[in-house]
């Protein structure tokens, strides 16, 4: 009953709107066609310009109030490069955005229909068109050169002393494995997966014996290159660490990797953000099923001493879980 009433009310609103529209049309038809066109063009040009002003204010104000949210501090080395590229792009596109949109609204207002005026016959101007072909091209080429340079730096080979960790996605959680004391990850085989060996690590291989598998927060040292070996067990996931500007898909069957150098510890970031509960969060960024939104892991960036201390406290997964059980 309630539903019916709501539906009726909505329909009634629409009927009223439609009738008003019809009435306005009937009234306007009394006028001379050209006069009518001029009047309505003025009204509509006004409203269009007004909406432009409103949107300009909305965009302008929100950019300043949300600034700190969307240009957050990058916590990694390559994050800073990305940030600088973003700033350059923001300036260039921002200027173009303001100018073109302003011209659009301004022309719409200025050159609205008047019955006694004629438009200018202006079909072509090759010079003008040439200019606005060349200028964007040059601008984009500059942006491309800047981008490509950084792109190859981001995807260069990791330094040999990089800390090796492995992040494996599955529905709907992350498995994390550290190289352990020898900083080397043992090989894996998906056919070996079972409840005590959820990653399918080959324990026969020596380098896997000291690997650390830990379900707690991910701990990593600051100012040290870290190579993340990324994999997935079931469907495509994506390792996404927004604060480090790090994203790479986890593809089953095709190992991927990403290396980065964190520059700010969790403690320091808490100070910067003035937020004592702040944590770096690892999220999944590729639709992986109904629990896609739920794959959270906290990443703790600590100083190198703390990291060494933490590392020495960890036990080899093989010794504590596999050997102990058999």
């Amino acid at each position, binding site marked *: 009953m309630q539903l019916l009433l*709501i539906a009726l009310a909505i329909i009634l609103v*629409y009927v009223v709107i*439609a009738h*008003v*529209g*019809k009435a306005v049309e009937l009234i306007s038809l009394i006028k001379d066609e050209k006069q009518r066109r001029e009047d*309505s063009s003025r*009204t*509509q*040009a006004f409203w269009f310009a007004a*909406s432009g002003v409103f949107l300009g204010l*909305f*965009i302008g104000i*929100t950019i300043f109030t949300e600034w700190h*949210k*969307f240009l*957050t501090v990058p916590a990694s080395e390559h994050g800073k490069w990305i940030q600088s*590229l973003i700033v350059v792009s923001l300036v260039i596109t921002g200027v*173009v955005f303001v100018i073109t949109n302003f011209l*659009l*609204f301004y*022309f719409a207002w200025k*050159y*609205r*229909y*008047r019955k006694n005026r*004629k*438009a*200018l*016959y*202006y*079909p*072509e101007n090759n010079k003008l068109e040439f200019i*606005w072909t060349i200028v*964007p091209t040059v601008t*984009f080429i500059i942006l*491309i050169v800047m981008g*490509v340079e950084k*792109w190859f730096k*981001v*995807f260069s080979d990791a330094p040999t002393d990089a800390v090796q960790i492995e992040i494996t996605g599955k*529905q709907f959680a992350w498995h994390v494995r550290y190289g352990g004391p020898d900083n080397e990850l043992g090989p894996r085989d*998906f056919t070996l997966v079972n409840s005590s060996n959820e990653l*399918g690590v080959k324990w026969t291989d020596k380098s896997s014996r000291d690997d650390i598998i830990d379900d707690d927060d991910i701990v990593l040292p600051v100012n040290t290159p870290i190579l993340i070996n990324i994999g997935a*067990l*079931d*469907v*495509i996931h*994506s390792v996404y660490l*927004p604060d480090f*500007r790090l994203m790479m898909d986890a*593809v*089953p*069957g095709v190992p991927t990797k990403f290396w980065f150098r964190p520059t700010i510890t969790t403690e320091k970031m808490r100070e910067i953000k003035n937020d004592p509960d702040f944590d770096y*969060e690892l*999220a999944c960024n*590729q*639709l992986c099923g*109904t629990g*896609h939104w739920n794959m959270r892991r906290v990443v703790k960036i600590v100083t190198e001493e703390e990291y060494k201390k933490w590392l020495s406290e960890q036990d080899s997964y093989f010794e504590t879980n596999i050997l102990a059980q058999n």
Partner: protein
Amino acid sequence: MTTDTIPGQFSMAHTAHHHKQTFLTKYIFSTDHKTIAKQFLLTGMFWAMVGGLFSVLFRIQLAWPDATFPLLETLFGHWFEGGRLSTEAYYGLVTMHGTIMVFFVLTAGMSGTYSNFLIPLQIGARDMASPMVNAISYWLFFIASVVMLASLFLPTGMASAGWTIYPPLSVLPQASPGSGMGMSLWLCSMVFFIASQIMGGLNYISTVLNLRTKGMTMFRMPLTVWALFFTAIIGLLSFPVLFASVVLLIFDRGLHTSFYLSDLYVGGQALSYSGGNPILFQHLFWFLGHPEVYIAVMPAMGIVSEILSVNSRKPVFGYHMMVYSLLGIVVMSILVWAHHMFVSGMNPFLGSVFMLFSMLIAVPSSIKVFNWLTTIWRGNIQMTPAALFCLGFVSMFISGGLTGIWMGNATIDIQIHDTYFIIAHFHLVMGVAAFFGMFAGVYHWFPKFYGRFMNETLGYVHFIITFVGAYLIFWPMHYLGMSGVPRRYYSFHEFRAFAEYDNMNILITTASIVVFFTQFIFVINFFWSIYKGRKMKTMNPWEANSLEWTTPINVNDIHGNWPGDLPTVYRWSYDFSKFEDEERDFIPQTEPLSQREIELGNNH
């Protein structure tokens, strides 16, 4: 005035069509391109409403993730178990929203409607090259629609792997409930849809190439025809590759081959798939997927060029450049697909090449924007709803297009890939903008569709709310995306960093609800005007030059468009305000060059 009242004038060549028409042959199984266009339009409108409704439903979940809405349970049943959208239904709705909007509305609804309607009318042809293939094209689309619609009501849930259906998620029913029957129907529907698009595209291309009337050289065609022609070419070249990828996906699902699958451990057991590569699918998919966005937006570009020119009483600025930039977009759009996969684990070197192409595709787009701006400069802009939607299109296209320069830059893409930033980008540039083009087209050609006008006041209300609303919906998403909020999340409350944007999400959802309900003003206006709208009294109400306005008012009763001979064309369709001292500010394409013009030279 029906065709019977003008005996002898009706073309000899088409007397075959002049038999007695029943309701079925005239409105349902018609081979007349105008009727087929309307069928596409109405089906597209139906799907647009469904797709829009879906977006509102999942936006409600995003704005108020912890609230319950018993009303929605009454309305939508098990999707809203206990008044809350279930995760399965959420991902199903997200998937369907994308699929419906991209394929059924912006591809079939858009180019299906306008290619069918405008190509023959604007190049002066009696019908499509093959009216039969044309009708089959619609009915294949109809079958695709029915299958897709059926999949919505499956008890096991609709397809829920995203509209991009990345395997392995879309292959393994163990991985997602929607990847069972729902995905099967999705793929089945897609096969019909691709067949429909290819048949349509073949027809559009050969019509433009072969059936132009006397004097209608390629460079006298209106830009709408150019845009639709290029759209058809893109579709013809890229849909087959989607077909190949879908076929391989079907092999993987049905025959257990492993084109896309390798090394999987799902649901507690290791599967026997081996040797495949999920990234392979992404390449094949995006080979269509990227051109697809141009398939959606290019007809709108053509429509906007045409309507802006007509309504500002000025020739479109840089006609040739507009054509070449469209051509540039066609060529580039098929070369840049992998910028959707910069962080998918593809070869970084290829990534840089794709970045180069992706950035350069912005050049033809920016040329178009500047040309549109110059078109309205010193014009005499009549603010009809159609013109307003075109202006709105240009604004949306600028705002959404500029962020494309960010996304195309692979290095920046590492940060904003698959976040709300990309949602904002593509909704503005190819979602809302393409819709605006579509609305503009409907308002502009409605008199040609139905012989009556749409109500302008309702059109104005529709425009201004939609325009402002669209910005309010999509602009804040840039902020969300820049701060790292990923797309396709059911709730942001799990993550501390993403949970702080509740206010913004509520703003977005509220705006989207308002905009959604505003669209009903358009729908009501549309159907009301079919029966009660102001009647068209003159043949050329907008005082435009192109050929469709030389057809009689009752053109819908004539299968063959022109009762007499086909018109002959002597000029391009943009001779507006050519001579300041003349009373009339337009010269139709069918008018021979005057002595004065010949003396002036340099005519199109």
